[in-house]
């Protein structure tokens, strides 16, 4: 009797501790910007991915497997992001990576992803170079720079029709690419470039540029910087009496900027892919849930990465909890419903997207137009 008991106990023990008997974990690595000049993006994105993971787990996980998001500090810097990504891949053995938020760090993460054969889903960065032909591991659920500029210059050329345009930007993939693409498109529709001022991402003194611009009197100024530099610029511009219509693509639509810029941002126009005031049903649900959990309104960086996590989980459900399985399944994604619209990837790993153009008025962002409306108006 005793020996049978022992055998039974042993069997039970073996069954319970058999590999695979323990719950599987789908690990997603996120080299986000927890510190440095881009730190403003760290909080909202971290919140959103955690929320996504919780929602998936509450609904039973990925075929029984738990979703866990591992954060690392990429500092919005290419080298740090690469190191963070390597740590996530090698030490933490994640099954998939999210992007590094800003374009340059994301490119660095991409290099790691491709080298280590880990699938990566980008939820923010726009550089064209991220999703190119032949990239088997990198996917993006938000627009690339070509799409952004097509949309924004479309709007500018048809509605605002600027004559003199200036560019004040950070000399990174994000800033340089946006400015160069926009410049090409705007010059094509009759605008003249009257100012070209590349600077460091942590630039603080714009006196020389502003004084030059005062002489040039641009009616539209692209301000492609992160919030700290942008706010310094706006303050100094006001101080020196420089007036223009400010325009931004992507980097200045967080609550942080709204708060710190205050009335400096009055009249500022920008483009992103998601606004809390959006009427799309999935977007509304996301906004409400985020607000309930964190007491704040989410920004589009949060939205993009939220979608990325949900998509990875979906891919794992289809292809299995493994790097190759997820990569394959991602490539085969068709019509995945998200708050950013329906996602299918073209051969370069890029999904189509929706846009929102907003303006700051009275301390809040007001939606001026959305891409669906514009498309409808143009009869597309």
């Amino acid at each position, binding site marked *: 009797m005793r020996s049978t008991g022992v055998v039974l106990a042993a069997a039970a023990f073996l069954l319970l501790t058999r590999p695979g008997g323990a719950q599987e974990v789908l690990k997603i690595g996120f080299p986000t910007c927890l510190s440095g000049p881009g730190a403003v993006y760290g909080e909202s994105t971290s919140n959103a991915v955690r929320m996504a993971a919780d929602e998936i787990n509450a609904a039973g996980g990925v075929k029984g497997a738990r979703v866990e998001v591992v954060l690392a500090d990429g500092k919005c810097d*290419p*080298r740090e992001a*690469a190191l963070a990504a390597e740590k996530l891949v090698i030490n933490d053995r994640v099954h998939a990576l999210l992007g590094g938020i800003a374009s*340059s760090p994301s*490119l*660095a993460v991409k*290099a790691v992803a491709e080298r280590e054969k880990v699938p990566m889903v980008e939820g923010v960065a726009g550089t064209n170079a991220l999703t190119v032909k032949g990239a088997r591991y990198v996917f993006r659920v938000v627009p690339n720079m070509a799409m952004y500029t097509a949309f924004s210059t479309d709007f500018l050329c048809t509605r605002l029709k600027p004559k003199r345009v200036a560019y004040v930007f950070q*000399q*990174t993939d994000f800033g340089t690419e946006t400015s160069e693409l926009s410049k090409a498109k705007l010059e094509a529709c009759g605008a003249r470039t009257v100012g070209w001022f*590349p600077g460091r991402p942590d630039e603080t003194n714009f006196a020389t540029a502003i004084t030059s611009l005062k002489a040039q009197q641009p009616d539209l100024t692209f301000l492609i910087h992160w919030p700290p530099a942008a706010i310094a610029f706006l303050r100094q511009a006001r101080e020196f009496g420089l007036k223009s219509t400010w325009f931004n693509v992507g980097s200045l639509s967080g609550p942080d900027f709204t708060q710190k810029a205050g009335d400096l941002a009055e009249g500022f126009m920008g483009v992103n892919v998601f606004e809390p005031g959006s009427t799309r049903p999935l977007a509304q649900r996301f906004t409400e849930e985020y607000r309930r959990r964190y007491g704040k309104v989410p920004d589009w960086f949060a939205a993009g990465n939220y979608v990325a996590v949900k998509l990875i989980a979906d891919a794992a459900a289809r292809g299995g909890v493994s790097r190759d399985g997820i990569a394959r399944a991602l490539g085969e994604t068709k019509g995945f419903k998200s708050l950013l619209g329906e996602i299918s990837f073209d051969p370069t790993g890029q999904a189509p997207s929706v846009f929102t153009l907003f303006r700051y008025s009275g301390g809040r962002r007001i939606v001026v137009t959305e891409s669906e409306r514009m498309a409808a108006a143009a009869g597309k």
Partner: protein
Amino acid sequence: MAAAGLVLALGAGPLVLGNQYYLQVLVNVGINVILVLGLNVITGMTGQLSLCQGAFFGLGAYVSALGMMRAGLSFWLSLPLAAGTAAAAGFALGIPALRLRGHYLAMITLAFAVITHQVLQNWADLTRGNSGLVGIPWPDVVAVGPVEVSVQSRERYYLLVLALVLAAVAATAALRRSRLGRSLLAIREDEIAAELMGVDTRLCKVMAFSLSALLAGAAGSLYAHYAKILTPDLFGVLQSIDVLVMLVIGGGGTIAGPVLGAALVTVLPEGLRAAADYRFFVFGGMLTVCVLFLPGGLAELGRRLLPRRPPRAEPTVPGTGAPPAFRPGAGSPRAAARPLLSVQGVEKRFDGLAAVRGVSWDLATGEILGLIGPNGSGKTTMLNLVSGVYPPTRGTILLDGRPLAGLRPSAISHAGVSRTFQKIRLFGRLSVADNVAVALAPHRVPPVAGRLWRGRVLGGDPGAREEVRALLDLVGLGHRAHDEARTLPYGDQRLLEIARALATRPRVLLLDEPAAGLSAVDVAVLRRLLLRIRDAGIGIVLVEHHMELVMHVSDRLVVLDHGEKIFDGAPRKAQQDPLVLEAYLGVDAGQPVTLDARAP
């Protein structure tokens, strides 16, 4: 044996452990070791503070990465190209920069560091600037005969780094033993004395700087293909400071120092990985504390804890050792047709104030000329003019008929003029033997080749050792050959200075108050030495206040007062010359008074 065992352990260890994390740390340590060994050459060994090692590092990194990615070069070409480009930059910067000293040199290297960083950042078309140069490949596979060399994994890259570290360590060790290395150390100890002892300090400093840059460039290449991503911020001023921190904490001037410093400074933060901010704070503290309490760094700590016993030579009776091979000037002593040294109408003004005015005198072969005068009469200025420390405002100085105008002090030294100093200028931390060895004239090989040719630059020269030995025996310091020069008693230091001056095989020897502070016994020794030197055919100019010595030893006397020559002739006559007496004693010209030869 121990070294070989250590190498094996380093080589095999990580591979056996198979831990990626440790491998990464070790690779970084290795790259930093090479970087610091580089800085060690210019700052630790040569004593010139360079704050742009990080810039050369960056230059090498980008050249190597772009070489592979844009120019399609093989890594095995990119690496030497990176090192060579950095060395060339070091050479180009060194030539103007190393004319400056101390703080000015530090400033210009700092400016170079900042400008390089800005260029890397802003020349985005080439370097991609702040966006970062991404996707740098592993080294390519190359076929060496039948074998394929592939360094495309972390483990193998570690071995590559290890190999290069060992090469760098070996090269540094060879440098230290070589003539160039000794010259660099001498420059660190006393640059002016080194120059006057025949070391071309300008060339040596530039070479040291280029070597530093070379090593940094190589390290940069290794870094680029390992990290696979470069951003300009990695190569700014902070990086240069980082390298300096490693050097100081480890201890400059040695070989163990850079290795220890690099290892410690690289490994420590890995333990504090999570709190990267604290890392620099801790290092700041370590650096300050280190400088305050342990300027020699860890290496000095090691030296204090493990004293080495230097080999001791047998003592010799002073002055009876075998005479060195003096090569006297052309012809026999005192028989030359024209004077050995001729000073003609020389004047020297400092900011309008004339220190020396219209002075002329001659020195014959094998003659001792006493040059005396009250304080401030221009004696030391005279010696400085002859040895080339500064040029005369007017007048000419001829050595064997050849004008010395415009020559560097080291060139004048090679021509045959050597000297000692009023305030002793030995190479304090070098050994007694090395002090003499630095000054050894490269007579076996033509000068240019002698500086560059491997055999003489890097190799040991047995003939040289004998000559050093003979010179030390001449002054009675053979038994202290391996002691540090600064540990010698005062009198012996003066003798060492003379031995060192003789190592250049001079034809004219300028002595600036060699008897100052010597006891009567030492003065007697000095006197015998001077006579021996004279008898070997060397002309001596003796500036002295010790009247007895001067009177007994000089063949002729020149007296200066307020920068002008007031007497030139036999020593006995000087004792009665009214002008001389007035200058020294302020006595009326009319009253003849015998100058007591025994007066102090």
